[in-house]
Every structure is written in structure tokens, then in C-alpha cells.
């Protein structure tokens, strides 16, 4: 009789299928355990369901929590630290093999990993090279000034939507702040204490939003959301919009979805001219092992985590998705194998380049804020108000900060007495 244990994850659609494949591979690879993998259709619902299930003592053995939920988990006391789990079950892992940029996001101040980096990404800039060519653009959009120029040219060439964007704060606020070395919150984006306060209403981010607003008003940048009928990804793959910023995870999907023969490319997120580019933040999610499961399940969980960390699996995973390899050896192996030179995968190495562009600073290590899901929601609400209802940029961002701080203060109070480690 195999020991069954559950794994909940947030990826959906195509990426969900790949997770299922991984699960199947694992189940076939050994005879002792059976992993049951369930998509919860979204990162936020996974966090939500995990919490609900934990309260109900029905939590899965492993759950996939996105970057934004990291601190929520860390303080919950509801998990088994990664290092402990592996040690207890007799696996030796080279914890230093993880890219430090990735590990930092999920590790304690002492560098101890609580969860397993699994599907890591960062935000990238995609553009339609065919359109660029037709509009007579002969440069790569490295800076926002260039993006603007490209947008104008595209518009002039008759493209209705030069750049599509939505209100997702991840690329717009988080990644932008990192690469421009701007803080999102005090206390090193929260790494140094629960009493951190949001500050993004006083950074370059404000100008950035104003710039977007101006572009949007000139119809150079166009809002594309699900509610409006088409999100940015389909807007790019349907060639409605010629530039978008989204996760490297979508690289695979874009390649598969754009019609055969369309030339497109991916670049690091643009920076403002005369800015010193910093490393971007790691995105995606990590795998947490939940406390309170029967001992036998942990053996299986450890086996699974060990399995997917093997170089072969890491390579497979990065191949079939756009996610980057999380270990140095994995990356090196793939690079050596010429993976990044081949057509469909070409360009993905730029994600790692972006992640590793500089050593991490206070502003680029990651974000360690409680209730960050809610804060993201406040930000996107503000962005929505700015772009859809013509609300005042500064006022809206002030409000997002104020409301975000309320969330932080409540979180601080809820976990009063707890220390960040």
C-alpha cells in the first residue's frame, strides 16, 4: 500500500498540465508513495485554501505559495522548515546551490530556507519584432524612453495598441522598484521588522505611473484586462498589442500561441535612462511543507521534493515551462547543453541575467511584508482608479500606501511578539 499525500498548487491552464506531468513522473519513479496533485486555480486561492484547510486540519502535505504569501507562511508556524524536513528524512541537499537571488527571497535572515524554491521567474519585456520592423524601429527597447519612442512609431504605423498593460503590481511596482533600486517599504522592504511601512508613494514609482498615465491618455499604452475582454497575454499573442511586460513563465506559452513565423523577442524590463539597473526580483512560488501531517507523508514529501530538485527534473521543468532553473548546477548544465541557443528557448537566459544583474541590495532582495496579497490588491485598485477613472495619481498612490499600511499594522498586531528570523 502506497502512502498517499497531497500537493496543492496554484498554476492553471497549460502550466497546470505540466505540474501534473511532474507528479506522474514522480509516482512512476518509485513504489512507496503516491502524490495527489490538485490545482487550486491561482496563487491567491491556493494560499486562501491552504489556510482554510489548515484551520480545518485538512491541509495538504505540500503547498505552492507565491512570493507574496511568503511572510504569511513564515509567521504561521504551520509548516515544517525545508532544511529540517530533508535532514529528518535523510536527504542531503546543497542549500548553497540555489541562486542566492532566489534563495534570499524565501530564506530567513540567517539564510535558512523555509521552503523549496520551485517555479521561479522574473518579469520580462516582450515585444513583437515583426511589428517593430514594420514600424521602422531599429532598436531594442532597453529604456522607457525607447519604449515611448517605439510606441509612437508603432502607433504611427497604424498599430492600435503599441503596449498593453494591466494593473498587476508585480511588474509595474515590485519589479520596477527593484531594478530602479527603489524601496517599496521601509525596513529593507520588511526584512528587518514587522513595523515596516510602505513608501512607494514617494519613490520614482510615482513618476513611472504618471508616465504610464500620459502614455495611456495618448492611447500609446492600452489597458488590457480580463474584465475588458482580453488580458495582456492574449493581447500579445493575438498581435493586438506589440509590447507587454509579464513573467518569463509565459515564455513557453507565448512561443506556442503566436502564429508560426511571427518574430518576437524578450528583453529585460526597461529602465529609465540614466538609471543604474539593479537585479530584478524573483517571482513565482515555492513549495511549503505543512505541519500537522502524519509522519509517513513527510517521507513521501521529502522524496518528492528531492525528486524534483534532481538536475534532470529541473531541466525538464524549465524546458516545458518558461521557469528558470533554481539551482546553479541546473542552470549551468542547461547552458552547457546549449539549451538557451535553441529557437524556442532562446532569450530565457535573459531572465537569469536580470535576476543576477547585480548583487541584491536592501531594495532588491525581496519583499517581506505580511498580508501582501491584500496590499497588491490595494495597489491594483489604485491603478485601476488612475487608469480607468482618471483619478489623481499621487492621491491614489497615497491612498494605496495608507491602506496597505493598515494591513501591515494589523498584521503586526496579530503577530505581536513574534520576531522575524
Amino acid at each position, binding site marked *: 500500500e502506497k502512502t498517499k499525500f497531497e500537493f496543492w498548487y496554484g498554476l492553471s491552464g497549460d502550466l497546470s498540465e505540466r505540474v501534473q506531468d511532474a507528479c506522474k513522473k514522480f509516482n512512476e519513479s518509485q513504489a512507496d508513495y503516491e502524490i495527489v496533485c490538485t490545482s487550486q486555480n491561482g496563487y491567491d486561492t491556493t494560499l486562501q485554501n491552504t489556510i482554510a484547510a489548515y484551520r480545518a486540519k485538512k491541509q495538504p502535505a505540500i503547498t505552492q505559495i507565491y512570493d507574496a504569501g511568503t511572510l504569511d507562511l513564515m509567521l504561521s508556524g504551520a509548516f515544517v522548515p525545508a532544511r529540517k524536513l530533508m535532514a529528518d528524512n535523510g536527504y542531503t541537499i546543497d542549500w548553497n546551490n540555489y541562486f542566492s537571488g532566489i534563495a534570499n527571497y524565501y530564506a530567513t535572515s540567517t539564510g535558512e530556507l523555509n521552503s523549496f524554491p520551485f517555479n521561479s521567474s522574473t518579469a520580462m519585456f516582450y515585444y513583437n519584432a515583426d511589428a517593430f520592423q514594420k514600424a521602422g524601429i531599429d532598436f531594442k527597447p532597453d529604456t522607457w524612453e525607447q519604449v515611448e519612442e517605439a510606441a509612437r512609431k508603432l502607433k504611427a504605423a497604424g498599430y492600435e495598441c503599441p503596449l498593453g498593460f494591466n494593473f498587476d503590481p508585480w511588474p509595474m511596482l515590485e519589479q520596477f522598484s527593484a531594478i530602479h533600486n527603489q524601496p517599496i517599504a521601509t525596513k529593507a522592504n520588511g526584512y528587518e521588522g514587522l513595523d515596516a511601512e510602505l513608501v512607494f508613494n514617494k519613490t520614482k514609482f510615482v513618476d513611472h505611473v504618471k508616465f504610464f498615465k500620459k502614455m495611456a491618455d495618448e492611447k500609446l499604452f492600452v489597458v488590457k484586462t480580463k*474584465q475588458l475582454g482580453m488580458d495582456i497575454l492574449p493581447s500579445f499573442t493575438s498581435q493586438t498589442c506589440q509590447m507587454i511586460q509579464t513573467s518569463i513563465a509565459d515564455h513557453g506559452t507565448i512561443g506556442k500561441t503566436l502564429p508560426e513565423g511571427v518574430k518576437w523577442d524578450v528583453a529585460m524590463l526597461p529602465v529609465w535612462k540614466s538609471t543604474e539597473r539593479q537585479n530584478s526580483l524573483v517571482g513565482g512560488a515555492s513549495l511549503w511543507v505543512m505541519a500537522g501531517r502524519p509522519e509517513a507523508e513527510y517521507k513521501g514529501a521529502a522524496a518528492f521534493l528531492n525528486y524534483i530538485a534532481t538536475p534532470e527534473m529541473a531541466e525538464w521543468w524549465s524546458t516545458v515551462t518558461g521557469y528558470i532553473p533554481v539551482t546553479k548546477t541546473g542552470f549551468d548544465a542547461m547552458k552547457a547543453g546549449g539549451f538557451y541557443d535553441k529557437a524556442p528557448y532562446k532569450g530565457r537566459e535573459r531572465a537569469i541575467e536580470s535576476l543576477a544583474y547585480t548583487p541584491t541590495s536592501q531594495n532588491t532582495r525581496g519583499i517581506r511584508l505580511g498580508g501582501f*496579497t491584500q496590499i497588491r490588491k490595494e495597489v491594483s485598485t489604485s491603478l485601476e482608479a488612475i487608469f480607468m477613472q482618471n483619478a489623481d495619481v499621487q492621491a491614489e498612490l497615497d491612498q494605496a500606501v495608507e*491602506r496597505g499600511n493598515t494591513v501591515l499594522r494589523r498584521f503586526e498586531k496579530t503577530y505581536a511578539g513574534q520576531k522575524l528570523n
Partner: protein
Amino acid sequence: MDKRAVFKSWWLPILFALPQIALILLFFYWPAVAVMRWAFTLEPPFGGAAEFVGWANFQDVFADPFYWNSVGVSLIFAFCGTASTIVVGLVLALAVDRQLPGSGLFRFLYILPYAIAGPAAGMAFRFILSPERGLMASVNAVFPDFWNPAKYGSHALVLVIVIFAWKWAGYTFIFLLAGLQSVPRALTEAAAMDGAGPIRRAVDIQIPMLAPTLFFLLVIMMTEGFVGADTFGIVHHTTGGGPNHGTEVMVFRIVDEAFKGLNYSGASAQSIVLIGLIMVFTFIQFRFIEKRVHYK
């Protein structure tokens, strides 16, 4: 409310009522107690020791402009939803009550939307009233942004109210028709003899006679609008509370706050306020409106 004829056993009623009473205690009162407890503590998302904070959660709730926004949205939703269902139901009931040939078929058809779940209706209407396709596309082609619920909160609110009204108009219709049909025929005949034509009769006799039914529907639909299952389903599935909190009704906000915001305490405080509101409404309705509607 008492029946004269009763049986005397004391244990039998307990036995008969026990299953439901147990369920109600377990799934209604016990959770209600929990709501109370959480409203006065800071409940950590993953559980564990919760700190007593007194009225702080309520203060937070009341200090939050978006909370008041949701109260306003809920009020508009409930009032407009109620008003439109009742008006549509009333007009149709008056029409069908004239019993012209074929009206039976209409009666049969009008109730059908009631069978449809809010979310399913929401999905259908998302298509039907989508700004880029369906009906509104043609209008938008002439007047850009004439209709864009993804952009304008007001449009979105209209959209969810339309869905609500669509689903519930058949329901009020049935009640009002039944009410009309229980108006003694002699009354309308008397009015006819007194010289009143069909419209005059509707206004002078039939509608006033419907007052008890209208009152009942007012209470039911207001409650439904405030806390009904469909209200949440429609909003959640159609607009997700947006754009920019434009359709964030109270129930939606509570669920969102609890499960997305992981703020069980704030959500509980909001629940309690909502419960209080419902009670106040019900009380007002009974106290001030009902008095005027009963003739017998």
C-alpha cells in the same frame, strides 16, 4: 399563531424537532458565536492564540472609506434591485392579470429566470451585455464608451442590478399575480360600475390592494439584495467587485476580506454590522410600513 388542537406529549416534539434544531445549533448558532468572538479579537489567519482587541475591529471597519463605499453600493444594489424587480413584476402581473388570450403562456415563461443561478446568469449577461460583442457592441460603435462596465463602476453596478432584477422579476411577478388574483373580482367590477377604466382600476384599486404583497416583497427582496446568495454569486462572477470597488457589495466585501485579505476579524465585525443592519431594516419596515398596509 397557536393551534387549538394539540397533542400533549413532551418528548415527541423534541424528538421530531431534534435533527433540525441540532443542525441549526451546529451550523447556525455556533458559527454565530464564532463570528462574535472573532469580531473582538485579532484572529491570526492560520489560527492560534488570538488577542482580545475590544472594538478595534469595528473602529477599523468604520474608519475604512471602502467599507462605507460597500455600504453605499449595497444600499443602491438592494434598493434599485428591489425597485426594479417589483416594478417589472408589477407591470407584468397587471398585464397578465387581464387574462387576455395567451397570457397563460407568458405567465409560464416569466418565472423561468428564477431557476437560474446568479453566477450562471452573470456569465450569460457578461456576454449579452459585453461592450465589445453582443448587443452593446453596436451601440458602442456609435457612441464609444457608452456602455463599459469594465471601466465605469456605475455601468458595472447597473450590470449586476440588471442581472439581479432579471433573475428575481419573475419571482415578484408570481407573488403579485397571486396577490392580484386574490383581489376579489367584485372589487374591480364595482370600480368598473363606478366608471373606472382598466388603468384607473389598476391604480385606484388593484395596486393599493396589493399593499401587503408589496410589503412582503419589499422585505424579501431587500434582504435578498443585501445578503442573498445570488447577490454574492452575481457580483463575484460578473465583476468581482470592480471596477475600483464599484460593485463591491457588503457580502462580497466580507467574503473577500476574510478569505482573500485573511482578515477574519475584520470580516466578522462587518458581518455583525450587516446583521444589525438587516435587523434594523426589517424593524423599520415592519414598524413603519406594515402599519399602513393591512386592511383586514
